[in-house]
């Protein structure tokens, strides 16, 4: 693997770097990062990946990387690339990732942190009890029929609402209203369906979580007011995606794309970038299947939100009105979407890949109902703070309306496990005021703070660049994990 040690970088500003176009690159690369972040990115091959993505047919303007960039399959995590279908632009499953529509949803409550106090233990136990976690976890919803699964694929979060999980109002507070257009269940294979039927309403493993947070700091009073955030308030975050269903769709289409690359004569520096023109049979098939997986993920997060509400109502013995759980927003950070963007003064419909990147639309940019801009949800790693930000006009001009998505891993799982070996991590977190319940204790070491970049540094970079601005900082009180 090319570590990218030789890659030339030109400094454009304090935290923006350009990789000049060379060889087969069709556009330059652009990386948002501080100088100290770059050394790590370079050593693990992330810069080489930004350069590789610049080879994609039809790529427009730049191959972009957000400051949480780290090595991924083909595309780096934190990568953004837009292609123009009318100029042979491609769609690449590697630019979306295995966990299609992995994303975050944040809910506000009317609870104050002072009210929770000694009830936190009961709350986290109830969450753990109500929400299935772990690798192949199943069972929140009885295994669904093929027909039901097709409804989930077509309708997304709306399906879950129709089943009594949450309410219609939630849909307006979900990216794409929780349903990506163009879903075509015929493009989804039998094995993906088999995995999908079992896992609806489950959290999964790895870095996925449900977290209870307290709002620790407000940076932007006006945006906080519109988002209904205030200091000392209890909020909930859910981070999960399309589970085995999305994984299987990705795996199936990597094979389809390997054939498409041959058929369309596309020359790529890395096989994991396999792709096909958006306007080709393979491209349309993948986008149809990917939308099914995206919708599955939205149905999943919608369902888990409702399960979390039930858990908290049961743990606290209060009415829904007393809990006051409301969806602030739901964003996806692994997706390819057809969006209209202005490029060189002309509005063009582009296929925007965001892999570990979040849409960050500015105020009143359709379909965004907020006066201040779209909420951007940026979770930290386990045990560290998270941020709620707001999308800004600069993101449209510079990054196809995108910003960062999280912290970005800097330490391998094994290294984290070694470093934290023998330590009572759950006990240490408890001493710091964070309750953790995990199905597998090993996950706790792998996901421990220190295994990731400091999320606040990441958020500062996009804040300074004006892609998204800080609204609030959240401190975790309790986490459940797979």
């Amino acid at each position, binding site marked *: *693997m090319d570590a990218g040690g030789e890659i030339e970088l030109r400094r454009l500003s304090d935290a923006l770097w350009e990789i000049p176009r060379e060889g087969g690159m069709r556009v330059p690369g652009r990386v948002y990062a501080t100088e100290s972040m770059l050394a790590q990115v370079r050593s*693990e091959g992330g810069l080489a990946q930004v350069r590789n993505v610049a080879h994609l047919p039809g790529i427009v303007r730049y191959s972009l990387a957000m400051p949480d960039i*780290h*090595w*991924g*399959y*083909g595309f780096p*995590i934190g990568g953004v690339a837009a292609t123009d279908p009318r100029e042979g632009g491609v769609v690449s499953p590697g630019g979306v990732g*295995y966990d299609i529509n992995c994303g975050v949803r944040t809910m506000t409550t009317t609870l104050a942190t002072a009210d929770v106090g000694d009830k936190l233990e009961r709350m986290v136990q109830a969450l753990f009890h109500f929400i299935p976690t772990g*690798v*192949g976890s199943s069972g929140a919803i009885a295994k669904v029929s093929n027909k039901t699964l097709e409804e989930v694929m077509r309708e997304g979060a709306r399906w879950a609402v129709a089943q009594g999980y949450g309410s219609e109002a939630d849909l307006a507070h979900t990216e794409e209203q929780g349903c990506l257009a163009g879903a075509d269940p015929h493009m989804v294979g039998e*094995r993906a369906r*088999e*995995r999908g039927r*079992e896992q609806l309403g489950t959290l999964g*493993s*790895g870095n996925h979580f449900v977290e209870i947070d307290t709002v620790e700091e407000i940076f932007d009073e006006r945006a906080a007011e519109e988002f209904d955030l205030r200091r000392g308030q209890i909020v909930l975050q859910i981070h999960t995606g399309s589970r*085995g269903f999305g*994984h299987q769709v*990705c*795996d199936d289409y*990597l*094979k389809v794309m*390997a*054939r498409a690359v*041959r058929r369309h004569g596309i020359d790529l520096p*890395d*096989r*994991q970038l*396999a792709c096909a023109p958006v306007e080709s049979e393979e491209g349309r098939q993948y986008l149809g299947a990917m939308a099914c997986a995206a919708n599955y993920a939205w149905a999943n997060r919608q369902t888990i939100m409702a399960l979390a509400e039930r858990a908290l109502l049961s743990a606290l013995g209060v009415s829904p009105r007393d809990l006051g759980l409301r969806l602030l927003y739901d964003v996806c950070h692994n997706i390819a979407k057809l969006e209209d963007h202005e490029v060189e003064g002309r509005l063009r419909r582009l296929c925007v890949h965001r892999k570990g990147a979040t849409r960050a639309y500015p105020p009143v940019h359709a379909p965004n109902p907020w006066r201040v801009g779209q909420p951007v949800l940026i979770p930290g790693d386990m045990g560290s703070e998270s941020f709620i930000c707001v999308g800004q006009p600069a993101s449209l001009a510079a990054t196809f309306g995108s910003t960062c998505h999280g912290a970005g*891993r*800097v*330490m*391998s*799982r*094994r*290294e984290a496990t070694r470093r934290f070996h023998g330590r009572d991590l759950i006990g240490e977190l408890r001493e710091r005021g964070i309750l953790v319940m995990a199905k*597998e204790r*090993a*996950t706790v070491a792998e996901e421990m703070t220190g295994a990731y970049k400091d999320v606040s540094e990441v958020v500062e970079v996009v804040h300074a660049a004006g892609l998204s601005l800080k609204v609030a900082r959240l401190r975790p009180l309790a986490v459940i994990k*797979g």
Partner: protein
Amino acid sequence: MSEADGYAEIDHTADLGLRVWADTLEGLFHQAARGLADLLTDPATVVPRVERVFELRAIDLEELLVAWLNEILYAWESEDLLLAAIREMSIRRVGDGFALRARAAGETRDPARHPVGEPVKAATYHGLRIVPRADGRYEVTLIFDM
């Protein structure tokens, strides 16, 4: 499979990987599956009670290896079935691609006997190239999605 065949775990920032080496293609596929089983649990604790037969096709060897490992992961995810003993492995050319036939044995996971390993989700194509070295042996680096 010969004495010189084997695998070793490699560290990777984002995920986990395996370096796998063998005298033959069949040995390579065999060792890769053993290495995967070693990530999932301790293979020594797995008793071969049930057997599965796999027949797969692919356009090239890289796709065949990823497909083979993802079969083992699918059995694990969908049935809790740990396949740790590879009993047969044959790979041949068919048309302009390759076909694999394998038999693998194992048992349903018993939390009391099988230690919890890594939450491996998929084998990836990242940096994967299967070509014989000058001495005819094979060596690959496999990265798993976690």
